[in-house]
């Protein structure tokens, strides 16, 4: 089957610093694909290139049969890629449901149908009871789920999640893992996630890409990748196994 997302040899330099170096990978439709690597490895930069925030210096990105590198972030979203931010960026003065409704308005121009759609997504993310609270009053775990809800409301074909479990307690992490698994199961949504919490990665991802100093040093199924010496050395450390 043709990949939903195909990244081919993309690189990004920040005034001399090579943040992402010649990375290639493909995500088939319906799969949960994880990107791991130490801090500063270039994971977020890679996401930002896919999401249209940065134009890659080299290489190309094909999504759903179309080249999307160089498109603006809003155009990329309209093509069907939803993303979350590592540092959450809710609309603080809006309520939880309004936050999600803004996302839903993309595909449902009618206000009441957008609100209905937002409520469906809020149910999935366990946020329905908090829908009338201002987003600024939410705790971090709730904000992380709001971030996912808002992206989901744009009805993407591919969801990019940047460390949505970082800073969560183990029970909260498990809750997020269950939610993501269920969404992937029910809707067949393709998910590309950056994650540090290995427990979550191991239980979610069908395949893993490991980044180190901007370069891909390993790719494959989780069980194989975590045994590769290069990965253990550069990232996981002996005790993580």
């Amino acid at each position, binding site marked *: 089957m043709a990949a939903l997302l195909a990244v081919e040899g993309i690189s990004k330099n920040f005034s001399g610093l090579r943040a992402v170096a010649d990375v290639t990978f493909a995500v088939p439709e319906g799969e949960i694909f994880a990107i791991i690597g130490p801090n500063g490895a270039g994971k977020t930069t890679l996401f930002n290139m896919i*999401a249209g925030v940065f134009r890659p210096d080299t290489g190309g990105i094909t999504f759903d049969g179309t080249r999307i590198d160089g498109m603006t972030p809003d155009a990329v979203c309209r093509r069907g890629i939803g993303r979350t931010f590592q540092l959450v*960026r809710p609309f603080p003065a*809006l309520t939880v449901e309004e936050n999600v409704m803004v996302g839903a308005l*993309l595909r449902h121009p009618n206000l009441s149908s957008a609100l209905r759609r937002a409520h469906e997504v809020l149910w999935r993310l366990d946020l329905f009871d908090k829908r009338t609270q201002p987003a600024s009053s939410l705790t971090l775990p709730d904000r992380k789920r709001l971030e996912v809800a808002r992206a989901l409301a744009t009805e993407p074909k591919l969801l990019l999640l940047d460390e949505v479990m970082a800073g969560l307690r183990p029970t909260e992490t498990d809750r997020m893992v269950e939610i993501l698994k269920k969404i992937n199961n029910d809707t067949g949504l393709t998910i590309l996630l950056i994650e540090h919490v290995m427990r979550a990665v191991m239980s979610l991802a069908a395949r893993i890409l490991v980044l180190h100093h901007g370069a891909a040093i390993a790719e494959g199924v989780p069980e194989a990748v975590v045994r590769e010496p290069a990965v253990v050395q550069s990232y996981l450390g002996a005790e993580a196994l």
Partner: protein
Amino acid sequence: MMKRLLHGVPLHATVLLALLLAALVVAPAFANDYLLTVLIVILYFAYTGQAWNVMMGFAGQLSLGHALYVGLGAYTTAALYVHFGIGPWIGMPMAILISVACGAIIGFLAFRFGVGGVYFAILTIAFAEFARIGFDHFSWVGGSAGFFLPVANYSHDDLMNLRGRPAMFYYVILALTAVAFLLCHALMRSRVGYFWQAIREDEEAARSLGIDTFRYKMYAILISSGMTAPAGVFFAFYYNNLFPEQTFFILRSIEIILGPIIGGVGTLFGPIIGAFLITGLAEVLQELLTWYGFDPPGAKRVFYGLCLLVVVMILPHGVWPPLSRLLRVDRETERTGDKAEP
């Protein structure tokens, strides 16, 4: 139509609004000329504040040059009237068109090239200043010597030509303010309104949700500049004289934004409450200082500034948000009404 407009508004809020409107409608029957003049000034600032609020309060774009759109509206209709005998209502679409065209140029230059925040504010000031200097040398409309509409003592109101007594002007500006309020109410609860609020809160996050931020910021400046122009038409026909040094002066732009800031930026009632407070305060201070026979030059301004300072320090989000909670017409109570099921 009415039903749609009032959707989600609690009943007693509608009643309060109807009472306020009724009081304003009957006011001329009880008010003397002085009070009527004050009310006209209040409504003028409520109207312009509402128009400015579309840009800053809804879409988060700070304009410090709204006097430009007032001035363009004023000069356009005044020139059409004086030179060609074209009435203000026929001139108004032209005034709006010119204002919107200017807004489009400013918006395009700023938003296409990513000028935001204080830099955008400076750009709006610059354009108002260009206009001030330009009109100073624009002899067709009097240049720096001023432009005057013919005045007579009117015993009959000529609504078509906006020539008449204060009560007529009062009803004109009241109608404009009511229309602006309804328009803003509809905008705030529309797709565009929510996209604006998303841009105001976090532009990058808004873009990540597929919102073409350039396009929606352009809509904001086009609507706001277009809404502001009729205030200029009113200004020209009410005061009958226009001077570039006053019309386009930055102080005029600042006056426009004081009301919504004191009342509550981004709220529907903020510009109205704010206009009552700032204009009322100025008048009351004047009365008090005269009463006590204490009137050294500048005293009024100093007290005025101090009062505004105190309000802003105690109520950083303006008077309306806490007042709305007090009256129980805020969003929280508004929303308990629609318990939607998934």
